[in-house]
């Protein structure tokens, strides 16, 4: 960016005739060097705001650090006096390898050891910045010996600015959406290596140990190429899958990493919510999930007092409010950041119909288990007619507590005599044993269950369970305006084809939490195929 151009403007020389082929190649390589430097800087800034949140702060500190490092680099270039061509070659290879691999390294580091991540990030940014700062003074000093550069410099600057514009537009709109952050940087890393290759050819006459330079260049290129080919593996490992879309909101609450992405600006249907890298909804088909979660139970019960546990995005609340019988709706979600987001962001409020601002709705930020327990101790509280449980999947032992006999017992104690609950319960197809474990757990506390499932394209075949002291009765009428659930389709959802049919399963208890292990095994096995 600006820094590169300033450095480039320092060295000028005598006028020469029009550009030759070699001079065009020179222009191209300066363009590439500038573009690469810009890509690494943008990649670092993007990564920092993805992984650390607070994009304004991250971008400005990364850019500041990077520019400062470039200044250090160009100052250091004065100490490089001999073997300029070889030095340039080495620096080019280093920039290509370190800059190109930086996002991959940082994603992996973040996945493996989050705590030293910040130090590593700024360390790498400083290193790449210094190397990039060394590049252009060196190339200018090299070329001064062969070309008169006065005109070229102005052309360099022009191309540089054009290149900067091109890259800064291409980066968010073309490169990251098409290639992803890891591959984008690798491609530009390889372009750096290509410049090194060109310099190798250009200075082949004066380089000592030419053979080892050739080997080093080829090795670096091969390394980046290998990383490029395996980028999917790195991506999967570092839970980077969602960075294919534009991140429109990212924040870290004490409880989770919240990311909202949108594939195309202005297309509300392309919005996705991710918590800790797990998809929570895709606006395109979330109605299938939330209609299936809410209406089979609510249309059957016609409840007055409803409780939602989890579901801070307000989508389930939107569906619940379609039922005229509902007079009071309490939403308990752990994370104030989520409910705040879905009560304040215009785009997200469009998606949930601004349901969380309804006068019927009371939003409480608390841990569901502890909140239900405390509620029982207060004699003044009234039970609920329906409880909708929309927690994240039991992917760890903390969340797993919300799928135990003890928890369901507590939910049951908060239900009115004729009340029932519905539980979202992972996929009966991909995680069949997990699904039936939840059913068995509900039955272990003496509840009658009605398991059902629905196809949600973003998730696959998804499971739900209705449970209560009385058997479930299929409803006959539904609110207007539903797109998925109706009285004809609903009975079919309660039928489980053989590949999802019931398996024997032990109830999930606080003291064993077998569900967490089962869930891990089942989804771990799925991960390889999908």
């Amino acid at each position: 960016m600006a820094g590169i151009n300033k450095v480039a403007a320092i060295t000028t020389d005598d006028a020469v005739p029009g550009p030759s082929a070699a001079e065009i190649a020179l222009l191209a390589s300066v363009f590439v060097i500038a573009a690469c430097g810009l890509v690494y800087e943008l990649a670092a800034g993007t990564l920092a705001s993805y992984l650390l949140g607070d994009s304004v702060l991250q971008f400005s500190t990364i850019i500041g650090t990077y520019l400062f490092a470039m200044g250090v680099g160009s100052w250091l270039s004065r100490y490089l006096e001999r073997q300029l061509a070889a030095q340039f070659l080495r620096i080019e290879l280093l920039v290509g390898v370190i800059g190109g691999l930086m996002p991959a390294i940082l994603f992996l580091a973040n996945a493996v050891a989050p705590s030293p991540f910040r130090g590593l990030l700024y360390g790498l940014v400083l290193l790449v910045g210094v190397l990039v700062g060394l590049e252009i003074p060196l190339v200018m000093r090299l070329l001064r010996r062969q070309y008169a550069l006065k005109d070229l410099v102005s052309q360099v600057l022009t191309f540089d600015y054009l290149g900067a514009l091109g890259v800064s537009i291409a980066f968010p709109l073309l490169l990251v959406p098409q290639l992803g952050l890891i591959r984008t940087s690798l491609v530009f890393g390889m372009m750096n290596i290509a410049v090194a290759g060109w310099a190798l050819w250009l200075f082949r006459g004066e380089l000592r140990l030419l053979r080892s330079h050739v080997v080093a260049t080829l090795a670096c290129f091969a390394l980046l190429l290998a990383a490029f080919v395996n980028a999917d593996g790195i991506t999967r490992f570092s839970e980077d899958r969602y960075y294919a879309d534009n991140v429109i909101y990212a924040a870290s609450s004490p409880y989770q990493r919240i990311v909202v992405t949108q594939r195309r600006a202005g297309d509300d249907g392309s919005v996705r919510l991710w918590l800790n890298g797990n998809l929570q909804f895709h606006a395109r088909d979330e109605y299938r999930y939330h209609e299936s979660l809410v209406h089979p139970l609510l249309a059957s019960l016609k409840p007055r007092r409803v409780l939602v546990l989890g579901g801070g995005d307000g989508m389930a609340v939107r569906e619940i409010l379609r039922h005229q019988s509902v007079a009071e709706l309490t939403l308990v979600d752990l994370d104030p950041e989520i409910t705040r987001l879905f009560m304040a962001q215009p785009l997200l409020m469009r998606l949930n119909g601004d349901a969380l601002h309804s006068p019927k709705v009371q939003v409480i930020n608390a841990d569901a288990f502890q909140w239900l327990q405390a509620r029982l101790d207060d004699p003044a509280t009234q039970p609920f007619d329906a409880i909708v449980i929309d927690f994240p999947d039991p992917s760890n032992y903390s969340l797993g507590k919300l799928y135990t006999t003890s928890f369901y017992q507590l939910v049951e104690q908060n239900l009115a005599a004729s009340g029932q609950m519905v539980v979202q319960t992972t996929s009966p197809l991909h995680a069949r044993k997990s699904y039936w474990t939840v059913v068995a757990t509900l039955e272990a506390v003496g509840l009658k269950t009605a398991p059902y499932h629905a196809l949600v394209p973003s998730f696959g075949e998804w499971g739900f369970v209705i449970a209560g002291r009385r058997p479930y009765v299929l409803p006959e009428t539904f609110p207007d305006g539903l797109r998925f659930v109706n009285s004809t389709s609903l009975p079919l959802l309660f039928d489980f084809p053989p590949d999802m049919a019931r398996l024997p399963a032990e109830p999930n208890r606080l003291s064993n939490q077998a569900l967490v292990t089962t869930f891990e095994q089942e989804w771990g096995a799925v991960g390889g195929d999908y």
Partner: protein
Amino acid sequence: MPLQGSRRRFLVQTAGALTSLGLGGCGESLLATRSRKLVGGFAGPSFERGHRLRDRAAIPPADETRQTDVAIIGGGIAGLAAARALQRGGVDDYRLFELEDAIGGNSRAGEVAGFACPWGAHYLPLPGPAGEDVADLLSEFKLRTLVDGRPQYDERHLCHAPQERLYLPEARVWQDGLLPVHGQDEATFAQYRRFAALVREQSQPGQFAIPTSRARWDASLSALDAETFANWLDRHALTASALRWYLDYCCRDDYGAGIDTVSAWAGLHYFASRHGFHAPGEDGEDLEQNLTWPEGNHWLASRLAAPHRERTQTGAITLRIAESAGRVDIDVLDAGSHRVTRWQAQRVIVATPLFIAARLLADPPDALKEAAKTMAYSPWLVANLHVTAPLDARHDQPPLSWDNVIYGSTGLGYVNAMNQSLRSHDGPTVLTCYRAFGDDAEVGRKALLSRSWQDWAEVLIAELAPAHPDLRAKLGDIRIARYGHAMAIPTPGTRSSAWLAALAEPQGRIAFAHADLSGYSVFEEAFDRGLRAGISTAKALRKP
């Protein structure tokens, strides 16, 4: 190679840790020390109050005389159990005197940074066939119900998953469970199986039981009690270092001293009295279940104490117990008012450690003198570390568990006090670290008294650093409790001694009630000894 002795290892490691601290540490640890100042201090019982018994200067004479049927000295589990037995036996006029400001003894608890955490015992294994009294208690506390004739326990108070993990510093991984299995060779597994078979062989009906008073004592047990556990292992060619370390850890955890110090009876009792020892893959591997609470066994102690609150006096320093014609006089100093009251009681139940009892009694019986002279006690350190953010974890390894131990360490690892919390997210917590010094009690006791809390914090951080390099950066408040004589060690000869057997029966108007009478200290033994003393005392009072 068999371990040359955990005792030597313990000395080398502890001395090493303390020396490096004393000398200011090496460069790296010094840098780390300076980069972040530790916040904390000592907590728990004051040495000063207990030591007042030793130097009786400036104690005023009794200025008041009061009467009671029974005086109970000591408000630990044994004293509380004795009160329970008296109340159930129809004795209404009793008094319980506790030295500290809070009851509980080794089941005390407190709070650090707003988190409840124990200052002593952390858990209670589910009672076995001989544990009817404990089972009764658990039923009364609604922890246990019978469903179709089978006991069921309240899930919320059973130890939540994940329960145990072991860090292997060389492989730099955590494994599930505490018995080392990761990377062990077939020879080690074969020794696991052989030890399991030997334990099964020893588990003859009636030989090992909890409480120990329910087991019959015979010559074969006396033989086991005559040698150290390490010696017994040597004789059976059980030399695998992983097995030796694990058994040493178990003994230090339950007895405060390792396999070189405790008797073979104790080492085998640990397994044979419960669910045995199970090599990987053998049936029953997962049988052991514990009841545990964020505040540890104080959950039980506070409920045990509740019915006796009116009759309990805390901060009450018993100075002297003297039996005279037809009664017992007990001089009690009130720590607050600094006044001494002479209590005249029909009977007294001394629910203190035996070495204290020997000092309190004006005329101690020979058996008690012998006990005070012979019995070894393990010094303990209990530290509660407030950790302000979840410690870094690798997704492919067992997560933070209830009990977390470092393989090869002389410490006992840590318990996550928030494991029993019902919160469904990770967050700040308190880790309770334990360290027992029974392998060289004198050195340990001196170190506990002389070293600063910062020194101890550094020892603990150094122990956990291989597994948790980010611990120091996330440490909040550090609170450390020191116990000079935390619990009796079942050294060879203790359990089979004549003096221990003699003290199990009342001596005149004085009954003894303490886990010391079992030769080692756990809730079940203290509870049993307390009940027995209470029952015999109530019976004696009913006689004309």
